[in-house]
Each structure stands twice: as structure tokens, then as C-alpha cells.
């Protein structure tokens, strides 16, 4: 199965009921898959007039009560940013899949890239805290999409799935999960009377329950900075509370969000830190280097944002050198550099010509830094 279609299968497993999107390479198969599958399940698909409208429609559907998703790439992800910000501000659960391609602008529509790593964190204006997950195989794409939905529903926030052109388009053998094999999280519903309901309070583990439309809770949803009742505010304390909440509801429960996988890190002096397709090259490079007796390991980030600072420090505590291979001009490397102890040597390895980093290129870099 193709990665983009594994994403569709993961979304459906997680309870996807509404998809809105606009065709763009290399993400189009996600829209096509949803157009085919959702009507069979009683779900809703719509091809909107552009990516701005697609993002708007999934927020509208989610506020109405349905689990919602869109998928896009490059320019489409840029167009979605304002309404992604609206979803942050209004605390609306939804999943945004970004099958990364080269940029800026039209860039490289059919080529791999990881150059939206920072955009997934800082893409829309203003202060907020983002969640982004990143699979590295077709099988992972299915499970990480399920995880993205669970996190979106649990934290009432948009969650980005960072794919790339290679994962999106490559075909691998995967087994589809059985019902009950993975946990599926649904947003909690309010139990108080409508007149007592505060839609934007930090009521339970950082968030409020979220009613659907037609359930008797007629609350206000606005992109203006608002109080716990959802009404725009100019009160300095209420403004601070709102922005603190957008951060704290995620950062206070970061351990529920962080996921890393490691290989050969127990005795490693040197570590590759990467995500996505690149981490597969890193795994192979580590295996080859180990055969030659080099004590090297690999940390794969499945949660890219919030950046797993503590876990990474912990895993790399005995490493003197870190190599950060990535398919851009250096984005993740800055995050690693500013979060690891100053005496750790951090080396970037960047490729941004539309091709993948090969295990051989990683081994060459390893030799250079040894």
C-alpha cells in the first residue's frame, strides 16, 4: 500500500468522518482515497475551491461534531496557515497532513523535502504551541495518523502529520489493524447544564469538554482572543490566561505526546537524530557502521513538535557527538543545538536538491566527524 493511502486507512480507523481538500502533488492520493472511502462509511468528502477553504471547512465540520482532516503540500500548506491559526485559537480538533515537497513557492512538486519542519511549528502568526507527528514508513503512517487524531481530540488542537513525498508515494507491505488493536480517543462531551458550561476553560487536564452542534450548548466560537465563555476580551488577565492555556494544555502533558524510537543507543558515542524518510537511511548507516565497530546509534523523532527536549537529552547523555541529517538547509539541527548541553558537538548534514540522503552519505559524514 502507498503511504498516502495508509494515511487514509489510519484516519478512518481513528474515526474520520469529514474530509475537505484541494488537489496538490504529492498529497492528492489522500483526497482521492477519502473521496472513495468516506461515502461507503456514511462520512462526508468535499473538494473545496482552494486550501484556505479546505482548512475552513474541516474546522466548521469539527465544531459541528465530526472528526475532520485535510491533506496538502507546499503552497497549499502555506495557504492553510491562517485558518490553522484559527483552529489553534478556537481549540478545534483536526488533523492536517503535509506531504512535504521542495520549496519555496512552487518549488519541487514531485521531489522530497523536509523544509516545512519549522513551518509546522511556526507557520501561522502569533503565539501558540504546535503538535506535529512524523512517520518514517508506510506502516508508521497508518499508526501515526491514528495518533494524530487521538492527540487532536484529547488536546482540542490541530495536529500536523509531517509526511514527505517519498513516504507518501512509496509502496510497502503493511497489515491493517483489527478493531480494538489501537486505542481511539474521542473528545469528551460536557455533562453540566448549558448555562453552566464554559467552553474554553482549562476544566479537565488542560481542556474543556466540547459539545457538537444541536446538543443544546449554543456557545460562541471566535478567532478573537476570548475569555473562558468564548467572548472577545480586552482584559489583560483574560488575554494572558488564554495564551497561557494554549501552551500549558500541551506542555503540561508533553509526556502523553512525545514519541521517539532509538536504535543502538545504549553504548553509543555518536548519534544520528532525524525523522521521516531520513531516519531510515540513518538506521541502515548505523547497522553498517556497527559492523565496522563504530559505536553509533540512532534517535528517530516520531513527535517532532513539541520538540522532545528531555527525552533527547536523556538518550544522548553519553554521546559526545550528534549528527542531524535532514532534507533542508538546516532546521532541525538548530533545535537540537539549542537543547543539548553546550559541550556536545552538533553536526548538520543537509541535502536540499530534491533527492534523499543515502546511508552512504551519512556514513561519509560519520567518518568526517569521528
Amino acid at each position, binding site marked *: 500500500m502507498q503511504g498516502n493511502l495508509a494515511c487514509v486507512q489510519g484516519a478512518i480507523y481513528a474515526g474520520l468522518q469529514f474530509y475537505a481538500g484541494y488537489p496538490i502533488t504529492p498529497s492528492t492520493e489522500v483526497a482521492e482515497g477519502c473521496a472513495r472511502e468516506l461515502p461507503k462509511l456514511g462520512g462526508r468528502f468535499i473538494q473545496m475551491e482552494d486550501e484556505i477553504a479546505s482548512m475552513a*471547512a474541516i474546522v*466548521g465540520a469539527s*465544531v459541528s*461534531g465530526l472528526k475532520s482532516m485535510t491533506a496538502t503540500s507546499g503552497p497549499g500548506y502555506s495557504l492553510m496557515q491562517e485558518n490553522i491559526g484559527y483552529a489553534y485559537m478556537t481549540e478545534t480538533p483536526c488533523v492536517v497532513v503535509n506531504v512535504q515537497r521542495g520549496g519555496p513557492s512552487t518549488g519541487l512538486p514531485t521531489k522530497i523535502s523536509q523544509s516545512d519542519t519549522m513551518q509546522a511549528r511556526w507557520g501561522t502568526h502569533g503565539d501558540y504551541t504546535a503538535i506535529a507527528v512524523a512517520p518514517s514508513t508506510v506502516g508508521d503512517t497508518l499508526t501515526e495518523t491514528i495518533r494524530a487524531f487521538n492527540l487532536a481530540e484529547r488536546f482540542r488542537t490541530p495536529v500536523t502529520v509531517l509526511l514527505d513525498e517519498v513516504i507518501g508515494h512509496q509502496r510497502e507491505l503493511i497489515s491493517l489493524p483489527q478493531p480494538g488493536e489501537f486505542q481511539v480517543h474521542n473528545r469528551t462531551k460536557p455533562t453540566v447544564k448549558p448555562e453552566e458550561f464554559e467552553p474554553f476553560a482549562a476544566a479537565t487536564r488542560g481542556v474543556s469538554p466540547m459539545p457538537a452542534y444541536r446538543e443544546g450548548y449554543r456557545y*460562541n466560537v471566535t*478567532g478573537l482572543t476570548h475569555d473562558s465563555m468564548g467572548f472577545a476580551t480586552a482584559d489583560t488577565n483574560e488575554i494572558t490566561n488564554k495564551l497561557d492555556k494554549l501552551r500549558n494544555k500541551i506542555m503540561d502533558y508533553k509526556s502523553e505526546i512525545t514519541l521517539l524510537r532509538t536504535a543502538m543507543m545504549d553504548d553509543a558515542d555518536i548519534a544520528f537524530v532525524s525523522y521521516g524518510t531520513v531516519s531510515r537511511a540513518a538506521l541502515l548507516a548505523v547497522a553498517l557502521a556497527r559492523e565496522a565497530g563504530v559505536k553509533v546509534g540512532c534517535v528517530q523523532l516520531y513527535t517532532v513538535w513539541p520538540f522532545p527536549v528531555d527525552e533527547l537529552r536523556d538518550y544522548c547523555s553519553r554521546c559526545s557527538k550528534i549528527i542531524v541529517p535532514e532534507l533542508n538547509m538546516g532546521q532541525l539541527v538548530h533545535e537540537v543545538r539549542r537543547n543539548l548541553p553546550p559541550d556536545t558537538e552538533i553536526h548538520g548534514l543537509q541535502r536540499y536538491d530534491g533527492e534523499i540522503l543515502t546511508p552512504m552519505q551519512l556514513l561519509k559524514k560519520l567518518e568526517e566527524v569521528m
Partner: protein
Amino acid sequence: MATAEKPKAVQQKSDVILEYLRPKKKFPSVWCAGCGNGVVMSAIIRAIDKLGLSKDNVAMVSGIGCTSRMPVYLDFNSLHTTHGRALAFATGVKHAQPKMKVIVITGDGDALAIGGNHFIHACRRNIDITTILINNSIYGMTGGQGSPTTPGGAFSTTTPYGNAENNFDPCDLAIAAGASYVGRGTVYHAPQLEKTIMQAIEHNGFSLVEAISNCHTYYGRLNRRGDAVAMIKWYKERSVTTAKAAKMSPDELDGKYVIGTLRHDKEATEFCDQYQRLVDAQQGGN
């Protein structure tokens, strides 16, 4: 003011309005004294009340601008979204909850400039959303800039020497793009506006009601049209009903507002109904 001082008819009318205002929302509104938005809001409330819609079953969606603040004051499921995108959000709401009455409140800048693309595509889909477009021919919230309905030659803060551009007629645009109900009213003709809004909400398909309204604060001042009362009188003097308009020449109609129902196609296929048929067919194993 003691309610006993009011004539009984006025008192009853106010009670209907109060029933739909949010009890916890802080008033006064952001609108200037005399703004036509209040008249339109009142017409919408009366229309909804007469239709007997359940508040829970109404979603009121808006974008950004003076007009777009309206849903926040009203006791419905209110979604105050980003500039120009109300119809795209509303499309998500309606497609997700097809049984809901979805009403979009928008202005001329919101619907026709930044939101122009969503506007024509919502018309084309013929999705059952009622759009109330309050057209005051200017951007009010940002302080009087030219909009897509500012007439050629008219003054605004961004057309200080007269508007060099042509303007849209929102109703013509909607009809051309495939909207199945299109009507127009003005803030002078409040009972007719209310009736048109009722028809639009009852209609199954995309409906547009253009409400011609006064922004005396900016449009009136910059174009020497006088205060709110003078502007509302202007609409009275320049409006003709569709019945009258049918007997008038294009020259006679120049500069006139044709009010009433401009299009009402009851046979046009509605998007959510059509999608449901397609879902039923797939689930039926066809």
C-alpha cells in the same frame, strides 16, 4: 425607561428581539448609533421567530468586519471566523450537519473581495446556506476604505480622488454563479427585508439576501450623503420593487435598487441532498 411608557405594539416587538439576544454578552454592540446593521439583525430575528426555528438548530457563521460581529450577540451556535472565509466554514458546518439551518452574515468587503472565490463556489454548489450580505459599499471596521461595491467615482479613504474601479452587483453575481434564491432589500424597507429573509431561509438551496444598508459614519461623510436618516431616505427614494422594475427601461433603472425576489428556483438540486443520495447508494452496496 419604564416599559409602561412604550406603546404596546413596540413593547411586544422588543420582547421578540430580547428573546434571541445572548444574555451573557456585553452590550452595547460595536456598531455606531444609527447603523443599518441593527435593522437587518432585527429583520433576521423576526424572520427566524416567525419560522419557528429551534435555536439549537441554527448555526450563524460570519467572517470579519462590522457586520460579521452580529452572530456574537445572538443566542445561536455562533461561529465568528476569519476574514472572507465564512462561507467556507459554513460549508463544513452544513455538510457535517445537513439538518441544521446555516445562516452566514457577511459584508460587501468580506463576501466579495477577500471572500469572492468562496462566494461564487457556494453559489455554484447550491449548498443550502442562507447568506445575508449587508452592503454598505465601504469597509467600516477598518475606517472607510473602498470595497468591491463602492460605486465608480465614489469617495473612500483609499479612493480619495474618486473610485477608479467598477463595482460588483452581488445579486447579479450570485445569479450568474448558480444561486437558486436571490433577493434584495434595504434598511428602509424592513418588513419587506424580513419577508425576503424568511423566503431565503425556507428555500432549500443556496440563498442570498442583499441588504442595502447605511454607513453614514464613513460612506455618508466621505460622499456627503448626510446622517443615517438622510441615507435611509436615499434608499427609500431610489428603490423600486421587482414588479415596477419589470415595466422600466434600463435607463430608468440606472441608479435604482430593485428590491424583492430576483430569483427563486425551487427545482435546483441541493448539494447536501445530492451527496446523501450518493452515500445511500454506496451504503446500499451499489
